[in-house]
């Protein structure tokens, strides 16, 4: 049971994480559901193969049959036969900012989700429980928006050069100094895309002869970056320090495979908040292990920066640790700052090195000035340097909303995963049909939610993932909780045995 805290002395607050086990009957019924869908999927493929049913997906023409197939037929099996049936729950077009409420374009399908038509109507003021908008900066009014508009008029909307050429503007310098100050590190480097911050910088940090120890639930950008680097990758169980320490010991004792030469570098790659689990990394233990085994630590704070900690400075601030203990601080501006892009913070030498060796810094066009200004304004607000207490109020509001929302859902009898302080709240649905039904029933009640199923989650752990925001008022949350309770009764989702 890896939920038990092994070194409580390392933590300055109680670390409470829960993953209630799937009820066995529900697991069996879930497999049965997937089995029935698979059987009918094979039936449909059979009918499409013999032209009994018209095939509406892309496939080779008859003249191309003798060439190597372009489409790996089986790889699309789930997309064709499971995802298509319920895909009206995803990719819903919005017409406005994804704030605490949003407007959704109403769509309808007359051929079981193969094609969609807009009805021309708009669903107004849908409560947004799905977007990453932890501090509520996704808004088109207020000081952030005004500042971004001014900067747009002054600099224009885009930069057509890279940071190493004409694309290096004063606003970028100003932003990087602010980010470094916010993080409490020596220097910082920013990039126009969050995903690229991981996938393009890890190859600049590790290479052949290095070992990357990666959490099994790391984001695809970390996985891609680790693979692009050419390093050896070993995966440890999610947030499991025993598993991590075992890999570290093996790495040091045995060294590289075959030659047994010592590894040039050990890089531990973890995330601050895991957005599918709602869990928070056990950072004090990771840092203790890193120091003990002389490894480097790469911390991806995509979700935790701005959303955790008394000052909103992420998981390092949350545990009250020293930012210098983390060798590479990475994060994105997408979730808490209402912007886009990512940053890497650390020692000055490291940042200088990345400035000249990172693919993104050399080849990618710089971050657009309005986005940079959005980051500067929102970060200044969070730090309280704008002369108001807006930032502190939002941080407190987010923390209260998170605690309240999680507690209420648990009291209602739902199975909630993750850490009590994480603003990402996964609520378990389990059966495949309930994924589609939950999203539809909630939208009927004017609430937008995100539902996730296999293969993005383990087959018996489909879930709805709520993202709490500081922009949600207590009334909004109560409306959402009431609707979730209703739908939970209708679909019988209250599985928890701790009711």
């Amino acid at each position, binding site marked *: 049971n890896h939920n038990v805290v092994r070194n409580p002395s390392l933590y300055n607050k109680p670390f409470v994480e829960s993953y209630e086990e799937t009820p066995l009957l529900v697991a069996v*019924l879930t497999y*049965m*559901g*997937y089995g*029935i*869908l698979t059987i*009918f999927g094979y*039936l449909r493929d059979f009918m499409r193969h013999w032209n009994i049913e018209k095939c509406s997906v892309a496939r080779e023409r008859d003249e191309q049959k003798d060439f190597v197939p372009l489409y790996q037929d089986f790889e699309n099996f789930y997309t064709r036969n*499971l995802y298509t*049936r*319920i895909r009206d729950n995803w990719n819903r077009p919005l017409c406005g900012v994804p704030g605490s409420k949003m407007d959704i374009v109403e769509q309808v399908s007359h051929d*079981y989700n193969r094609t969609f038509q807009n009805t021309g109507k708009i669903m107004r003021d849908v409560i947004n429980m799905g977007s990453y908008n932890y501090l509520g900066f996704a808004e088109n009014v207020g000081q952030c928006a005004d500042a971004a508009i001014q900067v747009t008029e002054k600099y224009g909307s885009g930069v057509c050069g890279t940071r190493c050429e004409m694309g290096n503007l004063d606003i970028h310098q100003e932003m990087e100094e602010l980010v470094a100050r916010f993080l409490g590190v020596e220097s910082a480097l920013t990039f126009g895309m969050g995903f690229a911050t991981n996938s393009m910088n890890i190859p600049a940090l590790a290479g052949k002869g290095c070992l990357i120890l990666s959490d099994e639930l790391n984001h695809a950008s970390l996985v891609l970056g680790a693979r692009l680097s050419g390093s050896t990758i070993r995966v440890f169980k999610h947030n499991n320090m025993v598993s991590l320490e075992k890999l570290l010991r093996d790495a040091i004792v045995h060294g590289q495979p075959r030659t047994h030469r010592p590894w040039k570098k050990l890089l531990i790659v973890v995330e601050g908040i895991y957005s599918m689990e709602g869990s928070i990394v056990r950072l004090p233990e990771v840092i203790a292990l890193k120091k003990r085994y002389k490894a480097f630590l790469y911390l991806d704070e995509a979700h935790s920066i701005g959303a955790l900690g008394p000052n909103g400075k992420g998981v390092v601030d949350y545990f009250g640790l020293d930012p210098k203990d983390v060798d590479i601080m990475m994060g994105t501006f997408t979730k808490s700052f209402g912007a886009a892009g990512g940053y890497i913070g650390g020692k000055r030498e490291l940042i200088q090195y990345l400035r000249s060796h990172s693919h993104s810094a050399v080849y990618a066009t710089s971050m657009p000035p309005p986005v940079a200004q959005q980051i500067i304004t929102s970060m200044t607000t969070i730090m309280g340097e704008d002369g108001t207490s807006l930032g502190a109020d939002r941080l407190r509001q987010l923390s209260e909303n998170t605690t309240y929302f999680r507690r209420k859902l648990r009291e209602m009898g739902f199975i909630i995963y993750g850490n009590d302080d994480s603003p990402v709240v996964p609520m378990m649905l389990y*059966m*495949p*049909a*309930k994924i*589609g*039904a939950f999203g539809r029933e909630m939208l009927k009640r004017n609430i937008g939610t995100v539902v996730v199923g296999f293969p993005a989650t383990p087959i018996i752990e489909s879930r709805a993932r709520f993202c709490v925001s500081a922009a949600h008022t207590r009334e909004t949350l109560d409306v959402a909780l009431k609707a979730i309770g209703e739908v939970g009764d*209708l*679909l*019988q989702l209250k599985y928890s045995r701790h009711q």
Partner: protein
Amino acid sequence: YQYLLVTALYMLEPWERTIFNSLLVSVAAMAVYTGYVFI
């Protein structure tokens, strides 16, 4: 509704549900008949 959700028929098209339900009914009928003959 619960039956549709638990068996995932909720995601199938009406004609597929008809196939599944008629199969289920015929197997159940056969089982009852065979049980009756056996007993």
